[in-house]
């Protein structure tokens, strides 16, 4: 099982769209995927028409394995399940370490429920906390969408600095440029500068700023479902390909 965290310490960067579309790409490629909606403002569940589960608002639910597995919902797509959480995070680190531990009850329960997923994708909340640090430690890859603007550049600097300070492995950070408008000189300049500065951190794939992606809110479905041949859908596919063919530590 591989844990991929989709994280950004800045809001409105297309993080949730990335989570949903990446999860969809993985499922389409034949992996079994669990997308965990951990962002209280996030809308992974909304995009997939999955209603938030009332049961899950209880903070301690991670200690209750059955309630956890019972809260998982099938999406409309094969191999693609959702944990529609809107959680509070008191026990999230416990959850993560259990997801990692093969012998934990959680892990066994997942396997027994036929849901020992190939990929667990976490749609993370946008803040720094001990929780984020736990996510950074537990995840195999941390996918970071970055809008090529000055403000985003600053927040990305902060993230890298945080990694350095905490002694976290920076190579887990897989950043990519999101909502790119190639007509804007600012975007192009920022991309060039940041690619030079963080040569190894950035993936080649770029997600364009596209109306098709914005329409996800209306269509409430992954992009591949209603605009499979759009430039944006192809860009997400490229992002998936690059992530999947990159170096990943698996347990």
């Amino acid at each position, binding site marked *: 099982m591989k844990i991929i965290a989709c994280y950004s310490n800045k809001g409105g960067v297309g993080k949730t769209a990335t989570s949903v579309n990446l999860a969809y790409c993985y499922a389409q490629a034949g992996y079994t995927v669990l997308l965990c909606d951990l962002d209280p403002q996030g809308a992974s569940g909304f995009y*997939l*028409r*999955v*209603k938030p589960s009332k049961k899950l608002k209880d903070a301690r639910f991670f200690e209750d394995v059955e309630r956890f597995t*019972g*809260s*998982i*919902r*099938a999406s*409309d797509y094969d191999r693609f*399940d959702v944990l529609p959480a809107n959680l509070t995070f008191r026990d999230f680190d416990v959850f993560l370490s259990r997801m990692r531990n093969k012998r934990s009850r959680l892990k066994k329960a997942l396997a027994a429920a036929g*849901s020992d997923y190939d990929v667990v994708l976490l749609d993370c909340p946008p803040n720094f906390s001990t929780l984020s640090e736990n996510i950074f430690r537990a995840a195999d890859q941390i996918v970071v969408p970055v809008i090529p603007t000055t403000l985003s550049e600053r927040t990305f600097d902060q993230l890298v600095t945080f990694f350095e300070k905490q002694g976290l492995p920076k190579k887990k950070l897989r950043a990519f440029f999101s909502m790119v408008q190639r007509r804007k000189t600012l975007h192009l300049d920022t991309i060039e500068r940041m690619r030079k500065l963080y040569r190894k951190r950035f993936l080649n794939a770029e997600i364009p700023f596209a109306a098709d992606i914005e329409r996800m809110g209306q269509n*409430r479905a992954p992009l591949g479902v209603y605009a499979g041949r759009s430039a944006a859908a192809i860009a997400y596919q490229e992002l998936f390909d690059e992530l999947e063919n990159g170096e990943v530590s698996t347990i």
Partner: protein
Amino acid sequence: MANDDGFFVFSGRFDLTQVSKGLKGFSLKIENSIPRRAFNLLDCYDQSVRAGGRLLIQTDDVLRLLNSDGSVVEQSGIGTGRFVQDLPEGPVRTALTGFSSLRALMGITSGWFESHDFAVLDDLQKTQVRGFAQSLSTQGGQVVLVCVQPMRGYDRAFQTVRAAFADLSSGQQSMEAVFQALLPGISPYKAKPDIALGTDEPSVQVATDIIRTYLHVARQNEAGVIADIDTEFLHDYRVSLRRIRSVLSLFKGVFSPDQTAEFKQVFSDLMAPTGPVRDMDVYLLDKDMYFSLLPSNLHLGLEAMFDQFRAERARAFQALTKQFRSTAYEQQMSKLTTLFSEAGAIQPGPNAARGAYDYACALIWKRYRKVCKLARRITEDTPDEAVHALRIDCKKLRYLMEFFAPLFDKKAFKVLIKPLKKLQDNLGLFNDYSVQQDALLGFVSRQSNAQGRVNAQLALAAGGLVGILDQRQRAERHRVIASFKHFDSQDTQHLFCTLFHHKEVKT
């Protein structure tokens, strides 16, 4: 109530929209459809797919296997006339693993197929339940199979949908119901049909019933033999005739001596042309085994040998089908069928009126004692003939027990048959090894010219095989002795005695 899984059978027409009314808060949406097209229902002759609660259909070049739990597997390929092991790799072939390798798939019936996938949506248009409805229609009737599948986390919706379908369905909710709708009044072929017996039924009646039944079984195999679908048709045909012949020889005195002699001749003549084909079938079926017995440098001769076997089979097969198609054969068979169907058409013998149970006990006890007598004498050094004689008597004992089984305790019979079967398996192998050696030697001598010379490759291959078969035969004799010891246990002896040996009725 219907079953726990979401599998429903509706006979006749069924409109999916009917169910929408029962789905409060949900809507049903048809997603993908396979438009109406011709289908072939595939199974082997004894309908093992059906017996396993499954349904295999062919539409165009797609094979679709529907399991009893409603799950479907599909793969491309043509199944008609093929053995499962010869299908292209795919999920259908994998799902049919364990299917008889001797039975070919054939079209059982045909008709029209249509399929619709549907989704049950909530107010957000989120799919909460999936399902499909498949309509199959044949000349016999029409049936719609509906399968609803739960989706993770949406159990309540699944229960609602299941209940809605259950309300509309009636009758048996199983794959068997589908077969009965598509093939009404047609029961699957059975190589060993159950024959009802009464304790006091006159023996002549028992004999006539058995013969009539197996005559019918034999006749059911004729078309398959002629069409050469698989080798089991001829095998079953021969087994049926053999059972009839064993009744004629074992049920002494139920028919008049003249009539018995006449029947024996008739059935022996019917059997005669089947032998050469079956012999070659056995070789050809075991082809891979023969090749594995010999090192590859002898394979050339083996190839030549199998070419000859195929040619011989073709000749023998032609002769056999010629007989099957002849007017004389047809007349003969219908005459026999009539004869064994009409009461009083056959001249009874001195034992004709004897009650079945009493007669069975006497016959089985006598045969059992003979088997024991023969078997206890077999050692490492007894001639092969003695082992062969034991094989024949074991077979007779087994047939007798099978014929009369309905009159006795099922459990006790199971206990007795199991070690007997094991012994018979060993005896069968012993016999096969011996017969095959003789056949190989005979084959080589037929292939040799006037000077007694024979193709060296062929002779090498035959010689190699004879050597191996002889070793195997000797090893099998050990096993025969061991298996008999097991069969000859105190418990079995005691059980035979209590079941069949009643002093007061002993003659």
